[in-house]
């Protein structure tokens, strides 16, 4: 494993440095940076798999001269799972990038982009295997900074700079909370090593543990994008180049999930009062619902996907929160199930969200716009991208037999098991969370019906879409790989569940592999067969069989009907793009139903013909939804800071001499005090 790790390290560092040796050849830089990253992430995949099945965690460390800091790594099953996920998405993103960054030739430095890409992947890998709090914070910060620089790749645009700044501020607020949480552990254990965090010399008092819980939730929650700390995602993720968006949305925010599981189940030993799990559950439900609702109103394809990341983080937290609640009451089987379901969804989301972002990147590559209103009819022009995007859309909408369906089904199951809980409140609340999840899934389906339908079907609505062409082969291969992984993760839970079981066993104290898998692994049946069971391979077979049946029927009896070829829904009129549903039009019913949440403002200006006021010359339609969180939560805070700064400006004379005099007088006064 040491060799694999060294190979991974060398690969990323090589990808970081090599392109800088060829300053004038972007094509060489491209191949070197992304080839090397691909090699390193290949090693990462192997490392993850071997780590997952190793009997003992692999550890290594290099002592540093800085006090309390040692570059220690530890690859236990949880870390291995995340290394595997990061490397898989990293590999695909590397392949994709070879085609995608040709867009940036001459516009941005490919060497810098490639170097940052490698550094970003390396820092994420180190975050999940770090075994020292100090080291963790360093690589965590490195990850944030590198992703910031990647977000501002197109820094000449004002909105990109704004997005980058927003992200930088939010992530540092989060990091501040993480540092506080780690300092509390340090106080108790006297060391920054994770081993000391796990087993402090004297156990932490209850109040302090609660403090750690809240700090970690806010700190890591900012990175994960839980509501109301999610506001940076829809700015930052769309601004980055698309393969970076895939990494950020697919895996970077998952490092926060990793850290939450690490802190709650590992460091705090899985001992918590019921309301901790309850808070996580509520935050999960709110994030899931609001995330998908705001996604529906978004017409920028990448912003839409960013809001879906908020939604899916919420879904993951539903699973983890349920696991925490069960853990409180000693129902370790169910706790393991909740945690397992949450982690399953974590991997699944990484795969399908990366796929969708790469798909969105391909659309951007082909049409040079992210605005869905300017798409349309792309399926004919980009059949491969369309097919892969569809698979991603099906997965994220949790339709069988894809991976999103399996993990959301498992989360439902663990929420339904709440009737085993002793308290009435929780007995009611968990099914409510399940209801929220159901609503979320439905809205997600609506959202992707919109995203796919508006983008790929009907006629092109702009010259951008009319002139679009299929993307280069490397980009198609990358998307294809992820599409295959998405389907396999759905069809083969019997492979995935035992792997995840190895991860949750140390935390829940019990292996549930045998209890979740039934019929030699061909079906999932959490806890018992009578309650509920699911077999995706059978479902898939049924789907294929039914569609075959349909086709067969058409083939058998279709000849009896006279065939005519004409435009669908045309009713004899020539169809034009202006007759199509727009993205805005598509979501109007939902906007009306949830008007209380969106608080929409609609502006319709009509310019009438002078001859007759029954005919309009032009119509102008505007529609905005209220950014509630920004308006009621962030703006007051920002206004408060600016107000304080305004008051402090009294002492700002603007004169250099005045400032020097301030320092001078302060110095003299302090010296006189000292005497």
């Amino acid at each position, binding site marked *: 494993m040491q060799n694999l790790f060294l190979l991974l390290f060398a690969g990323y560092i090589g990808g970081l440095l090599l392109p800088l040796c060829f300053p004038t050849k972007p094509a060489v830089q491209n191949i070197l940076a992304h080839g090397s990253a691909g090699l390193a992430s290949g090693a990462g995949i192997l490392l993850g798999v071997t780590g997952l099945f190793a009997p003992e965690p692999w550890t290594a460390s290099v002592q540093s001269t800085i006090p309390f800091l040692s570059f220690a790594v530890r690859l236990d099953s949880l870390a291995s799972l995340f290394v595997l996920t990061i490397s898989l998405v990293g590999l695909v993103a590397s392949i994709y990038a070879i085609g995608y960054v040709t867009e940036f030739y001459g516009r941005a430095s490919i060497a810098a982009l490639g170097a940052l890409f490698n550094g970003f992947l390396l820092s994420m890998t180190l975050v999940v295997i770090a075994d020292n709090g100090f080291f963790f914070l360093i690589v965590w910060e490195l990850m944030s900074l590198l992703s910031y620089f990647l977000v501002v790749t197109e820094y000449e645009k004002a909105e990109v700079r704004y997005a980058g700044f927003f992200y930088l501020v939010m992530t540092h607020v989060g990091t501040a909370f993480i540092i506080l949480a780690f300092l509390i552990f340090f106080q108790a254990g006297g060391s920054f090593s994770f081993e000391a965090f796990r087993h402090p010399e004297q156990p932490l008092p209850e109040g302090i543990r609660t403090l750690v819980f809240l700090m970690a939730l806010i700190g890591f929650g900012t990175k994960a994008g839980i509501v109301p700390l999610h506001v940076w995602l829809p700015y930052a993720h769309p601004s980055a180049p698309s393969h970076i968006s895939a990494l950020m949305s697919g895996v970077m925010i998952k490092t926060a999930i990793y850290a939450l599981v690490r802190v709650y189940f590992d460091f705090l030993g899985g001992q918590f009062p019921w309301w901790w799990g309850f808070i996580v559950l509520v935050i999960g439900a709110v994030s899931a619902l609001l995330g998908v609702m705001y996604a529906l109103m978004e017409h920028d394809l990448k912003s839409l996907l960013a809001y879906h990341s908020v939604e899916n983080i919420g879904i993951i937290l539903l699973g983890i929160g349920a696991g925490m609640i069960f853990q409180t009451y000693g129902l370790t089987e169910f706790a393991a199930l909740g945690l397992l379901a949450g982690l399953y969804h974590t991997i699944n989301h990484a795969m399908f969200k990366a796929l969708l972002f790469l798909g969105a990147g391909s659309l951007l590559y082909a049409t040079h716009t992210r605005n869905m209103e300017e798409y349309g009819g792309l399926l004919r022009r980009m059949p491969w991208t369309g097919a892969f995007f569809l698979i991603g859309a099906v997965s994220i909408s949790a339709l069988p037999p894809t991976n999103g369906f399996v993990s959301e089904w498992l989360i439902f199951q663990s929420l339904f098991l709440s009737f085993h809980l002793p308290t009435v409140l929780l007995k009611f609340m968990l099914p409510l969370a399940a209801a929220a999840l159901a609503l979320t899934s439905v809205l997600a389906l609506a959202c992707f019906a919109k995203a796919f339908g508006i983008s790929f079907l009907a006629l092109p609505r702009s010259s951008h879409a009319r002139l679009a062409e299929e993307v280069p082969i490397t980009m198609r291969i990358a998307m294809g790989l992820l599409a295959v992984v998405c389907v396999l993760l759905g069809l083969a839970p019997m492979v995935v569940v035992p792997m995840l079981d190895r991860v949750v066993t140390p935390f829940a104290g019990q292996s549930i592999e045998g209890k979740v898998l039934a019929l030699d692994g061909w079906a999932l049946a959490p806890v018992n067969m009578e309650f509920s069971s699911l077999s995706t391979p059978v479902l898939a077979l049924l789907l294929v069989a039914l569609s075959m049946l349909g086709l067969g029927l058409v083939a058998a009896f279709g000849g009896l009907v006279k065939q005519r070829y004409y435009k669908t829904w045309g009713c004899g009129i020539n169809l034009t793009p202006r007759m199509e549903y727009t993205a805005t039009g598509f979501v109007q019913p939902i906007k009306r139903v949830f008007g209380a949440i969106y608080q929409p403002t609609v502006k319709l200006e009509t310019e009438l013909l002078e001859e007759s006021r029954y005919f309009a010359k032009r119509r102008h339609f505007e529609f905005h939804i209220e950014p509630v969180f920004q308006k009621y939560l962030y703006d007051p805070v920002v206004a408060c800071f600016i107000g304080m700064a305004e008051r402090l400006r009294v002492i700002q004379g*603007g*004169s*250099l*001499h005045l400032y*020097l005099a301030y320092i*001078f007088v302060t110095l*003299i006064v302090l*010296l006189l005090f*000292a005497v």
Partner: protein
Amino acid sequence: MQISSHIGSQLVDLCSALLLLTCFAIVAQRRLSACVDLFALQSAFLVLTAALVAFLTGNHHIYIAAGLTCLIKVIIIPRVLKKVIERLNVKRELVMNVNVPAGLLICGGLVMLAFFITQPILPLGFLLTRDSLAIAFAIVLIGFFTMIARQKAVSQLVGFLVMENGLFLGATAATYGMPLIVELGVFFDVLIAVLIAGIYTNRLQDAFDSVDTSHLTGLKE
């Protein structure tokens, strides 16, 4: 032994006093190029002091520091500053925030303050350079005062460098010099600071047709 150490101490004090004297000369001098010359002279006295301390105490690494001081502060920096003055064509400091006589009075007050402040510390020292600490302190304060009193960027830079000289003297006086690595770092910093300030002065000239830093007040908004 007793006598030689006594004489050594007196010599160090003398050199330090000369340093302080050049400070007053800088405060009183309106011509910029003369200010720079005086700074070079002050640095030369500093080299002498450091070399003396090195000789008397046998701490050879102070020789290196003294040599570097000679190279950077006596030769390079004055030359850079002269170039800047030449290019910008500013010869004199015409308007000052504090006029020369008042400035000299204030500096006298600052020297008294420095001695007053170091009074409780000096008897605790056992090094032969201990009296220099008060002087070093006075030099730092006067350098700072120069930065406040003058308006031209070049003379502010000289004030900054005088402060630096004071700090160096203080370090030598209080502890026979900082570790060599720290001193090297400080020299590097000073050199960079001067280069940056030189560029800044040039930009100031380009932007306002003047190196008067009070123009910067306009940047407040």
